[in-house]
Structures are given as structure tokens and as C-alpha cells.
């Protein structure tokens, strides 16, 4: 499927319009849920860390440090991607699956259009913008952590900022965005595969969406483990 997606390209002008449309559908329209989840996850991580640090010998700055590490390394790239497997993945599978069921893909093929390039390539390119959404998720998550920590009375603003900057390793940012690009590719291709090659009717479109969500999540989790093992250990 991937090989055929990059063959026999669609007319450039049409392709640009499709890419802009997909950026809007897949990334921009997901920003609301990404910001909402990130803010509250950041806040909850801070509260839980604060409540578990009962030993007075452990500095309160650790709360900011723990929030930064967990948000940048895991919650923003991985947790949000699993949520996106449900939102974006289901959208991709059901929209392509419906096109399959209603013979719209056959119509493209009969016209001499490479339907895989027309349907899947713009999604892959659009998901290159997905790391920008994750960057926003990181900022919003840290913002949620700050607000919950400082205004919840768990630590001082200065302590949080101190924890946030302590032992900062720039490679962790590279690691987070590297795996985000891998997840973006998985989020575009696995649901597209399940939609494109589905057989049957409306009921099967629903089943394909569920299957695609499960598989995308599983592959993201396994890829996360492999990338972490390779880059951080």
C-alpha cells in the first residue's frame, strides 16, 4: 500500500488543495481536544506528584521537574497519540471505508486516478504538521501543571520554575519529536489501510473503525517501547 501511495502522483494543484483540507480535518480540528486533555493531564500529574511527596527532605522543586519530564517524554507524544488513534484514526477509516462501500474509490480508479495517492498521500503529508500540535500539547500541559501546582497551594511559583529548568536535557526534546513523527505516520497509514481494504457494507465500516483504533493504539505503544529502548537506554 505504501509503495502504491507514492506512485502515479495526482495533479499538483489538486494535491495542494487536498493537503490543506487534510491539515484542517486531521490537525487543526483536533486542537480543541488536544488542548483540553493536555491541560488537565498536566494538572493531575502535578497534584498526584505533590500528594505523594510527603517526605519533607524531598525538595518541592521536584514537582515541576516530574511534571516536565512526564509531559514532554510521555503524556504529550504518546498519550495524545493514542487519543488521536480514536479521533483521527476513526475519521480516516470511516471516511475511506465509506468511499469503498459506495464505489467512490472504484469511480476514481475507473477515471485513471491512483486512488491510494489521491486519498492517503495528502493524509501522510498533513500529519507532518502533527508535531506542532504535540508542541502545543507540551506547553499547555506544563501550563496546566503550573496552575494546579501554584494555585493549588502545593508549591511556590519560583519552585515550580526551578524544577522545570533543573537537569534539562535537550536530547529529550529530540526524542519526543522523533517518536511523534513516527506516531504521525502510523496515525495516517494504519487507519487508511483498514478503510481502503475493507469489504462489506455500513456495518463493516463501523467494525473497521474499531479494528483500526485497536491496531493503531497497539502499534503506537509497541513503537514507543522500541524507540525508547533504542534512544534512551
Amino acid at each position, binding site marked *: 500500500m505504501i509503495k502504491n501511495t507514492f506512485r*502515479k502522483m*495526482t*495533479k499538483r494543484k*489538486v494535491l495542494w488543495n487536498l493537503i490543506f483540507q487534510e491539515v484542517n480535518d486531521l490537525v487543526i480540528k483536533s486542537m480543541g481536544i488536544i488542548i483540553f486533555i493536555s491541560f488537565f493531564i498536566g494538572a493531575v500529574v502535578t497534584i498526584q506528584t505533590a500528594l505523594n511527596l510527603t517526605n519533607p527532605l524531598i525538595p518541592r522543586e521536584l514537582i515541576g521537574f516530574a511534571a516536565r519530564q512526564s509531559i514532554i517524554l510521555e503524556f504529550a507524544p504518546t498519550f495524545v497519540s493514542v487519543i488521536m488513534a480514536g479521533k483521527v484514526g476513526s475519521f480516516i477509516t470511516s471516511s475511506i471505508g*465509506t*468511499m469503498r462501500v*459506495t*464505489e*467512490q474509490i*472504484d*469511480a476514481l*480508479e*475507473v*477515471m*485513471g*486516478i491512483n486512488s491510494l495517492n489521491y486519498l492517503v498521500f495528502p493524509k501522510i503529508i498533513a500529519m507532518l504538521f502533527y508535531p506542532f500540535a504535540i508542541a502545543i500539547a507540551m506547553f499547555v500541559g506544563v501550563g496546566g501543571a503550573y496552575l494546579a501546582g501554584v494555585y493549588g497551594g502545593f508549591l511556590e511559583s519560583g519552585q515550580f520554575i526551578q524544577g522545570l529548568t533543573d537537569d534539562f536535557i535537550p536530547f529529550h526534546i529530540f526524542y519526543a519529536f522523533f517518536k511523534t513523527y513516527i506516531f504521525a505516520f502510523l496515525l495516517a497509514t494504519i487507519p487508511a489501510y483498514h478503510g481502503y481494504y475493507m469489504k462489506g457494507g455500513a456495518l463493516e465500516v463501523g467494525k473497521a473503525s474499531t479494528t483500526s483504533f485497536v491496531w493503531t493504539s497497539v502499534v503506537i505503544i509497541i513503537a514507543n517501547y522500541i524507540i525508547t529502548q533504542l534512544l534512551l537506554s
Partner: protein
Amino acid sequence: MIKVENLHKSFGETKVLKGISTTFEQGKTNLIIGQSGSGKTVFLKNLIGLFEPNEGNIFYDQQKYGDLTTSDRTELRKKIGMVFQGGALFDSMTVEENVMFPLKMFTKKSNAEMLKRVHEVLERVNLDQANHKFPAEISGGMQKRVSIARAIVNYPKFLFCDEPNSGLDPRTATVIDKLIQEITKENNITTVINTHDMNSVFEIGEKIIYLQDGILAWEGTKDEIHHSNNKDLSDFVYSSNLFRKVRQAYQKGL
């Protein structure tokens, strides 16, 4: 003209098409009829290139499909118009955008030129009031007409229709049949229609082929059907009381 030679198609052990040979003539409405499961749809999908035959050849105006390169096949497909059973209109596009789609993909016309051609064909199919509506907002008959407009907008040489009037009321079905026949004559294109609507057979069937269990069991014109000795064909065509009476009237010279 489309010439088919000894076409075979199997799916695993199941042989669906068993050596079909026939010719579909230019400027005529050619009909494929047969019972469900007789191989009509598989035959049509071989003709439009969605399936590759296991054996046999298809010639489009002397061009042997099997010998064409990938780019030649793409060029040939630009000359093909297809009306799908359910319309197969793109849900996310308006009527106007659906019809304009082949022009956008394959021509270098300006937007104004494309719009002019789109309005021409929409007017031809008597549908110039729904340009900005989406497929879900128009009736089944209108969707079929949009589908016909999209199929003919880029001046095709071959037009294929898969059960174009299924799910339509008899009056709209007749309108669609007549429209396809008129467009075939006006543009001198080779039209192949897959149908099991006997009204279509007697209205527009200039050449009819009857498939039975993947074999071409009979071919002829709509008038020749009345004189056919093929029992299966007669059982199929005259299964309704109305058409039995039509045959009796025809044989009595009424």
C-alpha cells in the same frame, strides 16, 4: 467499438466468466442482461479495467488492453465514462464540483471554461437547478443524472452504466434510459449498460447479450428476443405477466 475475445475470469476455484466473445458497437446502446450471479458485474468490471481477466483479450478501438503500458491504460481510462449503480458521487463535493472533477484532474482548462462545460452537461441532463447542493441533498434520480453528467463531461468515447435505473420509479427510470440513449447518439460513443430491467431492454436495447452462468448464451436485438428459441432467455425476459402479454401481442402482429 469494444471487442471481447474469449474472456475468462476466476476467483480462486470459482470460474465466473467462461470464455465470452462479443462486440459492442459504436453509437449504439449495448445491454448486458442476465440473472443475479450470472457474471454481469464481473464482466463489466473487466471491461472498465477494475478486474484483470485470467485469459482472453479486450480491444478498445483496435487497442489491445493487455498490451497497453500503465500510462497508455491511464490515457485510455480518461476516455471512459462510468455511471455506477449507486451514483458513486463524492459526498464531500457539491453537484458542480462532482461534475467538474474529471476536468480538474485531466485538463488544463481555466476555471471559467470548466464551469461553462459543467453547466452545459448539467443542462443536458436537465439538472441546472442543483449546482451547489451536495449529493445527500438530492433525490436518487437526480444523483443518477449527476453521475451521467460527470461521466460525459470530458467527452468520453466509451460509456459504461451499471444498472443505471435500479432503485428508481418507472417514470424516472425511463427518463434515464432515454437520456443515455440520446447521449450515445449525439456523441457517437460506445455505450455498455448492465441491467436486469426489462423495460430498459425493450426501450433502448439496440444490442443485447444474455449471460448465463458466465457464458454468453444469446445475443441479438430487442426485436429478435421475441423470436428467440432460447428457453432460459425467454424464462428470464418474460418472467412477468406484462412482458408475456407483450410477446403475445408482438407475435400476433399487434
